[in-house]
């Protein structure tokens, strides 16, 4: 069975310039292949064995004869095909030779290859295609990826450039008996590519000193000749266009004398549209003619046409932190970790409850209001009306409909594994009860109400800590998932209670006050991550994707392992509360979206990463926590990184990188002199205020070391904004850049208008100064420190400071006979070309020249 993902056809994506057929919608089929080359094999573990699935036969596999980085299997598809997914079969027991890490490369159908199009069904190369230098009997194999011997170097093939070998998958197999199916990369620039060959490159086995074994490989995809022929042609066109674009950029950046062949290139009837016509005009106007005013006009037109807005939408946001500075006399909640936070979407109020200050648990409840500051709503003492006992590692959820804060769970030190055992051995009974009490704070009237003295007795979770709880407004329910159970009661028949168990998924219906068990920790979840169902854990994140009607569970810890997966649990469409599915059965509601988010640009496996949802944008923001070190077994690194996950496109983007503090090694925070950055931490709290479009972070544990003690906790409050580029600001900056260039050329005495290579009469310094003060200054955001500094430095250009060899060293602009040489026509050209490349960034990627350079891709042969 497929353990990971369901292969399915992706929706086509429209691209204005690359008009290509998208990946087919029809069902995939198994793609027959033959193994045509391999690095080595041992005993009778011949590579051909991988075509057969026979999990009970230990000999039905390929096993290499070495465990270095040069091992591979080369598969040739019987017919070129668009490959959608690859399934790896395994032995019926865990096996140390299973691939812990591997990559798969694909060789796309080449438009130049004799294999292409006309000979789709032929399974051998025609004799004429054999190299004239090779022996007649030499096998006709495609050239091997150059990065095979040094996979970490990230050679051209690894990046998939040049239409040669492309990395279509990087993954790892779990050391268990479950087949694993991986979706592979099958498009580049939204154009699907048919493959002729697949290369499997093992990187690590589950035990380092053992050889690599692959038991079974099956490829799924589309190989109907019609589909493949169309895709192959489109792929050829895409490669052609990409090549031309690189050529265009190369010619443009090398010398102005290439202009005529460039124009010829673009005017060829067979030439596809390479870039947006506005850009072509901009290049001629700005770089060739130095037309600064018309260039500005062209950019304004790009804004009006919505082009800049499109580029802005695709650009990643940038996280900007601001510390909320305490007022001297105002109250402020004490330092803590393991506390709880909730944000009232209507008012923007932030609630903080409980936590652990390094010595004892806290029971106080605070409210932070922008402009007003902190207010203690409840001191949490033991006197007066009943209230939740001081607690940490609990959960608090705000329900706007009933104006309630719900509080569930807590960590009880006396009940934790070792302590409880010690107490039992001494014949002592822990003083603290193990009842799971459940509370509600009335946000309007103030005051606590105990909803339950023991949710376990009511069919809800037992006393748990480091669980997760979210509100599902349509069903008026709270969903509680995971956490470690501390109940001392014997394990219940359904196994979800009892000491040291991981708690499952429960729903609490707010109006009826009823608990339902929705899913329990699947049996065998300790032994195999492939256990069917929703694998329970602690210290994870959980958010509601209200548009997709699902819960998203990220990372966390199970036993001594940090998890790095992202799992979705589908909720009933509208209104209903999820029902129970017996464990041990495949639960169709569970879908593993990612086994290791770090492989997709997301967070490393970790613990107490905090997540908040921006429903409007469909984004999950994940902050900090303890991350596993790559390849390490230690307790990990405390980091303050921020990622954004798009719930619709499934894309991870890192938007902030806080320096990591090694556990016990100290260090922390960042100091780049310009902005404040929060100290790395875990067990802090994060919330999102939609009204102000601000994320709050309060407190946490900075970890030991660096002069910090084990008791240290933080009490700092931060606001984080995700700054997204805004089209009018982008335009303003573009105008600033153009005018700065004009000013630079004035300082050079080049004057305007002029064509490159013909320095015009020197400009009066005063005229240039007045241009700087009026025209340039008007485009500068003087409140932006960086821009303001840049602007102020520009005045120095008048006196020969700055780049590109201004003349008149230390003196007034002269006749070019001073110490610094006068700018050559090449300097002018290069400087304008750099400006053009910056300006091109305000156009979406598919409308402009590529980021990469042709010269970086030309294979240079080194004589050995």
């Amino acid at each position, binding site marked *: 069975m497929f353990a990971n993902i369901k292969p399915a056809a992706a929706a086509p994506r429209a691209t204005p310039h690359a008009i290509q057929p998208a990946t087919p919608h029809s069902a995939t089929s198994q793609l027959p292949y033959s193994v045509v080359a391999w690095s080595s094999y041992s005993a*009778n573990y011949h590579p051909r064995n991988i075509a057969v699935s026979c999990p009970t036969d230990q000999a039905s596999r390929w096993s290499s004869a070495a465990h270095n980085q040069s091992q591979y299997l080369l598969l040739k598809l019987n017919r070129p095909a668009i490959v959608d997914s690859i399934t790896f079969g395994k032995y019926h027991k865990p096996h140390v030779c299973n691939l812990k890490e591997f990559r798969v490369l694909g060789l796309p159908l080449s438009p130049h290859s004799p294999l292409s199009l006309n000979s789709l069904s032929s399974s051998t190369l025609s004799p004429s295609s054999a190299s004239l230098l090779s022996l007649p009997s030499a096998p006709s194999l495609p050239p091997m990826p150059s990065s095979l011997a040094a996979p970490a170097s990230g050679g051209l093939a690894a990046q998939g450039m040049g239409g040669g070998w492309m990395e279509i998958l990087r993954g790892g197999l779990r050391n268990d008996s479950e087949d694993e199916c991986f979706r592979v990369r099958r498009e580049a620039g939204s154009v699907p590519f048919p493959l002729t060959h697949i290369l499997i490159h093992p990187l690590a086995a589950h*035990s380092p000193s053992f050889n690599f*074994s692959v038991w079974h490989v099956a490829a799924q995809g589309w190989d109907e000749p019609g589909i493949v022929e169309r895709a192959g042609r489109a792929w050829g066109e895409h490669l052609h266009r990409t090549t031309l674009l690189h050529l265009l950029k190369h010619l443009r950046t090398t010398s102005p004398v290439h202009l005529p062949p460039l124009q010829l290139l673009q005017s060829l009837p067979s030439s596809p549209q390479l870039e947006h016509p506005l850009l072509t005009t901009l290049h001629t106007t700005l770089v060739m003619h130095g037309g600064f005013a018309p260039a500005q006009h062209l950019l304004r037109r790009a804004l009006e046409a919505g082009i800049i807005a499109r580029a802005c939408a695709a650009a990643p946001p940038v996280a900007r932190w601001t510390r909320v500075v305490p007022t001297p006399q105002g109250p402020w909640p004490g330092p803590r970790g393991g506390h709880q936070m909730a944000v009232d979407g209507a008012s923007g109020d932030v609630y903080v409850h409980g936590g652990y200050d390094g010595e004892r648990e806290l029971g106080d409840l605070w409210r932070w209001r922008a402009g007003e500051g902190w207010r203690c709503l409840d001191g949490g003492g033991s006197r007066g009306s009943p209230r939740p006992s001081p607690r940490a590692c609990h959960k608090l959820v705000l329900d706007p409909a009933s104006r309630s804060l719900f509080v569930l769970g807590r960590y009880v030190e006396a009940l934790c594994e070792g302590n409880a055992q010690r107490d039992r051995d001494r014949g002592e009974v822990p003083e603290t009860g193990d009842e799971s009490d459940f509370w509600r704070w009335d946000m309007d009237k103030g005051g606590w109400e105990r909803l339950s003295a023991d949710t376990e007795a009511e069919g809800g979770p037992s006393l748990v800590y480091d669980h997760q709880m979210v509100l599902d407004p349509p069903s008026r329910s709270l969903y509680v998932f995971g956490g470690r159970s501390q109940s001392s009661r014997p394990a219940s028949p359904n196994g979800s209670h009892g000491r040291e168990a991981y708690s499952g998924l429960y729903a609490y219906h707010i109006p009826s006050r009823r608990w339902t068990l929705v899913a329990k920790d699947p049996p065998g979840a300790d032994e195999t991550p492939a256990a069917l169902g929703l694998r329970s854990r602690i210290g994870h994140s959980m958010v509601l994707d209200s548009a997709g009607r699902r819960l998203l569970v990220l990372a966390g810890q199970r036993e001594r392992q940090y998890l790095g997966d992202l799992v979705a649990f589908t909720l009933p469409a509208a209104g209903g509360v999820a029902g129970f599915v017996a464990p041990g059965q495949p639960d169709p509601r569970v879908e593993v979206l990612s086994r290791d988010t770090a492989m997709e640009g997301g967070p490393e496996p970790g613990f107490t990463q905090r997540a908040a949802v921006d429903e409007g944008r469909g984004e999950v923001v994940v902050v900090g926590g303890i991350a596993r070190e790559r390849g390490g077994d230690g307790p990990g690194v405390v980091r303050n990184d921020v990622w954004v996950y798009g719930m619709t496109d499934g894309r991870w983007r890192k938007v902030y990188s806080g320096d990591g503090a090694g556990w016990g090694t100290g260090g922390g925070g960042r100091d780049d002199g310009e902005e404040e950055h929060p100290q790395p931490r875990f067990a802090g709290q994060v919330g999102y205020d939609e009204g102000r479009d601000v994320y709050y972070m309060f407190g946490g544990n900075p970890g030991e070391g660096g002069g910090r003690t084990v008791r240290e906790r933080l009490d700092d409050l931060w606001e984080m904004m995700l700054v997204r580029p805004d089209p009018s600001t982008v335009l303003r900056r573009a105008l600033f850049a153009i005018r700065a260039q004009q000013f630079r050329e004035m300082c050079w005495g080049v004057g305007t208008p002029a064509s490159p290579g013909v320095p015009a009469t020197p400009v009066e310094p005063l005229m240039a100064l007045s241009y700087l003060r009026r025209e340039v200054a008007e485009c500068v955001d003087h409140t932006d420190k960086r821009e303001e500094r840049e602007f102020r430095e520009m005045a120095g250009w008048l006196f020969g400071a700055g780049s590109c060899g201004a003349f008149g060293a230390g003196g007034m602009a002269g006749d070019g006979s001073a110490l610094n040489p006068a700018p050559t026509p090449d300097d002018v050209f290069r400087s304008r070309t750099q400006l053009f490349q910056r300006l091109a960034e305000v156009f979406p990627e598919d409308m402009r020249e590529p980021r990469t350079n042709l010269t970086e891709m030309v294979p240079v042969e080194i004589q050995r």
Partner: protein
Amino acid sequence: MHPQFRSKVVCEVGCRWCGQVLCHRGMRAILLADTTIELYSTDQPPQGTQLVAEDYTTRNCWCRIRDVGCVGCGNVVGYHVTQPCEPCMSACNNGHYWMFHTTEVTSTERLDHSGKQILTWAYLPRVERDDVGAGRGAWCGVGR
């Protein structure tokens, strides 16, 4: 060594699956905790193997053991007693902490220097003097 083991034949043990030579100092033995189970044991870490995964215990006794994998094919061919239990230690044992499952290995009788006589444990050189076992002699099957 207990006299009863001195007459035992020294075995060459190999992996049944990939032919990898595992050990030159094997002894056919029975399991103390379950005398119906036959296995091969040896007195030093076998050169053609690696420990895999974690320690565990079986239902037979309280010994903590860890699986041993064949470096040729990765198959589990035996186990290593990492922490013997009291009952096993007090029973009459041969002092070997490395075991091979008879179902996973093949064995041949090891001959002495003359190449004609079957070697018994009474005449087997000590570990540090046994060239064959140390992988320096002609029997060394692994060139890596």
